[in-house]
């Protein structure tokens, strides 16, 4: 079936199976920045923004997003660079497999909650697992990014 949606503000139309998930659709169309760490909505590495809200793309049926807006990391390259800067400053970056998901979720956090508390930050990012870093350093990096004007 043909599904039309906005991929980083460009209208695209993909031929998909009805039972196909968005992570699979995007990866099979060459958008390999979408990382799949579990394929069962438990790790957050496939996080994308759907209508500006973080979703785990391995559990979103592509058929369900007709006419909606999807943001991948390609859509927020400059913000991702800023987040990367703070991760590097805090020594929070390692293998990077979780990073794309983090960048998108942290970007959404900044847009959606003004001056969040630590508790709110943790609630927002708790679904994004990272097995490499000390987590504490990520939190510090995220806070530094959120403070940026």
């Amino acid at each position, binding site marked *: 079936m043909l599904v039309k949606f906005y991929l980083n503000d460009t209208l695209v139309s993909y031929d998909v199976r009805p039972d196909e998930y968005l992570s699979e659709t995007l990866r099979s169309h060459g958008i390999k920045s979408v990382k799949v760490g579990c394929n*069962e909505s*438990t790790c957050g590495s496939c996080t994308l923004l759907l209508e500006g809200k973080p979703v785990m793309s391995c559990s979103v049926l592509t058929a369900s997003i007709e006419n909606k807006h999807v943001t991948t990391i390609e859509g927020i390259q400059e913000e991702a660079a800023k987040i*990367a800067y703070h991760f590097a400053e805090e020594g929070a*970056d*390692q*293998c990077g497999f979780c*990073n*794309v998901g983090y960048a998108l979720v942290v970007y959404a956090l900044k847009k959606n909650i003004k001056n969040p508390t630590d508790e709110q930050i943790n609630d927002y990012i708790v679904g994004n697992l990272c097995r490499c870093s000390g987590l*504490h350093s990520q939190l510090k990096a995220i806070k530094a990014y959120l403070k940026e004007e």
Partner: protein
Amino acid sequence: MAIDKKNMKVVNNKTHSLDGKALMQGKGKYTDDLAEQNSLVIKILRSPHAFAHIKSIDVSEAQKLNGVALVLTYKDVPHVSFSRAGQGYPEPSPHDKFILDEYVRYVGDEVAMVAAIDERVAEDALKLIKVEYEVLEPVLDFETAYENKSVIHPEDGIKEMFPIGFDPKKNVAASYEMHVGDVEKELAKSDVVVDETFYTQAQAHAMLETHSSNARLDMHNRLVIYSSTQTPFHMRRIMATTLGLPVSKIRFIKPRVGGGFGGKQAFHGEMFCALTTLKTGLPSKLVYTREEVFGASYTRHPMRIQMRIGAMKDGRINAIDCRSLSDTGAYGEHALTVFMIVGSKVLPLYNKVDAVRFGGRVVYTNHVPAGAYRGYGAIQGNYALESTIDILAEKLGMDPKEIREKNSMKEKETSPIFEIMGEGTKGTAMIMESCKLPYCIKRGAELINWNKNWPRVKVSDTKVRGYGMAIAMQGSGIPFMDMGSCSIKLNDGGSYNVTVGATDIGQGSDTLIAQIVAEELQTSVDNILVYSSDTDLTPFDCGAYASSTTYISGNAAWRAAIKMRERLIKEAAEYLGEKPENVEFDGKIFTSKDKTVSLYDLSVQWLYNKNLHQASVTESYFGHVSPPPFMAAYAEVEVDLETGEYEVLNYVTVTDCGTTINPMLARGQVEGGIVQGLGMACYEDVKYDKKGNLLSNNFLSYHIPTHKEIHKLTSEFADSYEPTGPFGAKSVGEIGIDTPPAVICNAIYNATGVRVHTLPITPEKILKGLKELKK
């Protein structure tokens, strides 16, 4: 000669990792991102039984299914035993695994393989394979494995490469015994003897990128494999031997890797990709599901460890006796070497003893195979030893910090264990040229305010804060065995290509190597172009394991840079008509008296105009010693006495890893290790049902630390310089993981009086202990 760190401009300075920005921007290519578009998709049929013999297997229906390209069973693959462990040659692990076998030895073991045009067809084909099993009695309790009537490896054709105590008829994968002095005599002489037994659980690596590989044939019909591996060169060797191919026919490329922690120091699918592509001529790929990573790759070796320690009234430790039993699961990968590290990278911490003994066996069970996992035996040993030291201190009426200060390793000291115990073989004697452990202990105590807080602070009637500590050591590569190498090539304009075998799996080795080369050649990291881990294009490296990268690969890079610098100066001197000793080089300009020439000009001339040649060097390095990094760790843990629940409020570490080549990345290694160690200490637990089915097979049933649990980590480094390391560096990749089980155990005890002898330390166990105390 020590180089003054103050003069270092790149090393020991804040340098962002070379790939961090690109990875955050989604530009990093991991293995599956590089699979050919039209790859055959491989799926594995896995055993539903913990132990069974395949009586018959019928794949005809599967083969007939539209879109299926290949089905393989044990009848179709080379019957050559090998070890999947990516170790040096000859391997210290038994060759006890076949690509596919007529026996299956754990729930999840490989029965057959299907390659099809897509995942759905492959999965449908798996369902059409008919297998008749003769179900055998599994061994699911490792304490009953030895000489059990169920023999897990009854087959012929399996072997040890050199004596490792391999005795498969008794379910023994490896065994080991050593002693120094007369332990029984020393224990008998001691004023106080403690005898404690601890159990450590299996832990899952849970790296975020699942095991992945893909293959294709190049235009010369060579097999080209991308693999998410820690050891590309070992993979090439083992695959060549097992499939009967010349090494020249195989190329392994390691792209970005999404975490390894030892789990990727092994084959997990590469053989199936190779066979599929060789047999069909088509590209293929195999990506493990998350369930397969949990249920069909590796875990940490669970162990039972008994510690007997004797000491005199004044606190002097006389003797340590450590007996251990390790569960290697269905296959003996890393069985002996992990086991030996329980002793060799733990017991030398207390080097003033008159006698020390270590030994025991590694047994097979019908569990998911155990393999390499960060810490590699040291975390298990550390939990047992460092908990027992606290118990001993209490018996002696001493502060646990003091007993450690009195008995632990100091600079310029040694331990006889180093010479006796190596990596499956004899070890190498060494003196601690750098050991700032006394400083680490002292500084850590200040940071946690030990003197005021230990053992506990009452917060309320139901809440108490306990304070615990432990010390740890690790190694830096395996002496005379691990080798790394590095080539440097000068480009026109003055930039350098650096090719290394060193395997960046997210720990940042590409960045460290660029820093080391840039420091020596007095340039910036932007001028250094690192390419790593491609068996065709880069020189050899043993790979990323045994905390070897900074020390071994870093030393190779340093040597190559020193040689390049000498070569450049020599050639510039010729150009200037001067002696090399009169030429200065600042990274850009060669100067001798009043004459100068720039690297830029020379580098262009050499390629296009005069004295035409390519300036390049290659150097290798292997360790003659394995200088241990040291650490002292302290934690502040708040326990709820009503529920047994607790929170780790602050985890303090002070680490001596010599010079931190990259201080931020070093901190990342320490803190990442601590968090994984806290996971093991507090809740991570690989669980099976009574039939050997894995219960913890996803991120919901197997909980890894998240932002909710991890609070404050305070990480400092001691000012230390290892004379044999590159710019004074030792390793830092594993040491962080070693302390949390003992530190948390000690802190919980200090808070509550409950000593937990089995990991993980759960609220239920604490509560049970509290109830018993009340009786």
